[in-house]
């Protein structure tokens, strides 16, 4: 149980950093696609008796490569390209899993994760990956901030917009890959979006947005595990459900406060 909580907190921290960029740069769809793109990779790896993470990495690489190829070669907008690959990869994943004798069990495990079954070595890998993601985000804080602000500004400021965009996608992919074990490929996306979205609602700086997201993500992991233990519900899904509910609760509070501010009842941080 403690191991599950540690895994949940690690996922929350990684997802808070990366999710901030996903929310601010409108990368939600490609983040989602990555999360699903790893499915056939993981399924294939399991079928071949290889580590799932290896398969996930291959799946993510194919996804990113495929999206940029289709966007460059056809005049399709990137969301159509992403959508096509995403559905294709998902279908391929299900086809591969259907060859396995324990079809539904495997599929559910990949899609929704197995946070209660996280091994110590998984934790170490996750901690290492989270540290790496955090370090890259810290070093590249300036170009990443410029990219969120305006990609053209980044380019004119002498930071290659394409290179740092690719690096950002790599961080998203890394986070998705190491998190799928705990919350699954379907639900990691929820951890990527919900806490970061809460951060966007509350924070006035990028750093505080990430910190807010990490706190809300960790709280979701803790509450989710507690609830799932007591109510005997699926752990990963309960965590993501709590995170999503927290988002709507915060959204409601922020809107009520804004409405009250308009009537002059409370002041928001806006007026200086």
């Amino acid at each position, binding site marked *: 149980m403690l191991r599950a909580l540690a895994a949940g907190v690690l996922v929350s921290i990684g997802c808070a950093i990366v999710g901030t960029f996903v*929310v*601010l740069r409108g990368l939600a769809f490609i983040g989602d696609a990555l999360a699903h793109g790893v499915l056939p990779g993981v399924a294939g790896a399991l079928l071949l008796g290889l580590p799932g993470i290896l398969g996930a990495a291959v799946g993510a690489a194919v996804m990113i490569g495929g999206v940029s190829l289709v966007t460059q070669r056809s005049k399709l907008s990137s969301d159509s390209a992403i959508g096509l690959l995403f559905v294709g990869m998902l279908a391929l994943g299900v086809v591969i899993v259907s060859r396995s004798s324990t079809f539904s069990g495997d599929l559910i495990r990949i899609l929704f994760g197995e946070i209660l079954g996280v091994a110590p070595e998984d934790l170490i890998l996750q901690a290492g990956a989270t540290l790496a993601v955090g370090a890259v985000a810290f*070093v*590249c804080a*300036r*170009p990443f*901030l*410029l990219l*969120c*602000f*305006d*990609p*053209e*500004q980044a*380019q*004119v*400021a*002498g*930071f290659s917009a394409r290179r740092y965009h690719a690096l950002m996608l790599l961080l998203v992919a890394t986070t998705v890959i190491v998190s799928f074990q705990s919350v699954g490929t379907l639900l990691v996306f929820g951890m990527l979006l919900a806490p970061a979205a809460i*951060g*966007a609602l509350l*924070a*006035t*700086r*990028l750093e*505080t*947005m990430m910190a807010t997201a990490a706190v809300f993500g960790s709280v979701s992991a803790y509450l989710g595990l507690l609830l799932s233990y007591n109510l005997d519900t699926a752990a990963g899904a309960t965590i993501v459900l709590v995170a999503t509910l927290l988002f709507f609760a915060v959204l409601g509070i922020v809107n009520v406060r804004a409405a009250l501010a308009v009537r002059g009842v409370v002041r*928001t*941080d*806006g*007026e*200086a």
Partner: protein
Amino acid sequence: MMLAQEPAAEKPAVVPGAPSIRAVDLSVGYDHRPVVTGIDLVVAARTSLALVGTNGSGKSTLLKSIVGLLAPVAGRLEVLGESPGAAARHIAYLSQAHAAGFILPLRAIDVVRMARFPVRGLTGRFTREDHDLVEWGMRTMGVWSLARSPLRSLSGGQQQRVYLAQVLARRADLIVLDEPTSGLDAGGREVYLEALAAELERGAALVTATHDIGEAVEYDQVLLLAQRVVALGRGREVLTPDRLLDTFGIVIRDPHPEHAGRFVVAEREHGQPQVVDAWKGRS
């Protein structure tokens, strides 16, 4: 307490003595498809160039080429004596639209601080000079009191002032602005014009795309664009009713005898009709 004093000057242009912009038979456009061809111009340091034309006339395309976002389709283009893009550190560029929108959690001062990123690179620490320039830029544009306010809580005009403060804090040798006065109120415009005059005085060159013909007349050179070069030269010579008619489609002279030389320009698609006094000095 720091005063809004101008901090010490920075290093000179990339290639000393080179004109800020030199274009020879330049064609600019997207994906090898030219939008405007045959542009020949020289912009020297301490001088200004205004680009005037309708939406889609090629103003923004030319600006993007100058700052290195678009490769020239044909011809030669030198910026500060180098190929466009190579001089990034010495250019301040304010684009027309900001992707920032309202979701980005940033304070006004964080936006202005970005101006110093090209100089300090990926991880270089901010110096006293950087902090002074940020404060000076924000004081000049009258937004220092809003420094710690979230960007999204500011009005459109205040945000535009913050963006212009960023341009000033860059201490650029070449300033490239795409319709910078949109959203500015009268007070903001006045501050903006004074600040740009000071930047020219300091030694920077200025290129501005504008819909404001009254402003363009005051520039050293005006380039009139309509998916081709209609005219290039001194404002009062270029911005004639005939040429504006050619560029914008509709020009109405004000028939009132006291308003001789005043005319109204209306765009085919976007923009407000404008009253222009192109011959204020002459008639």
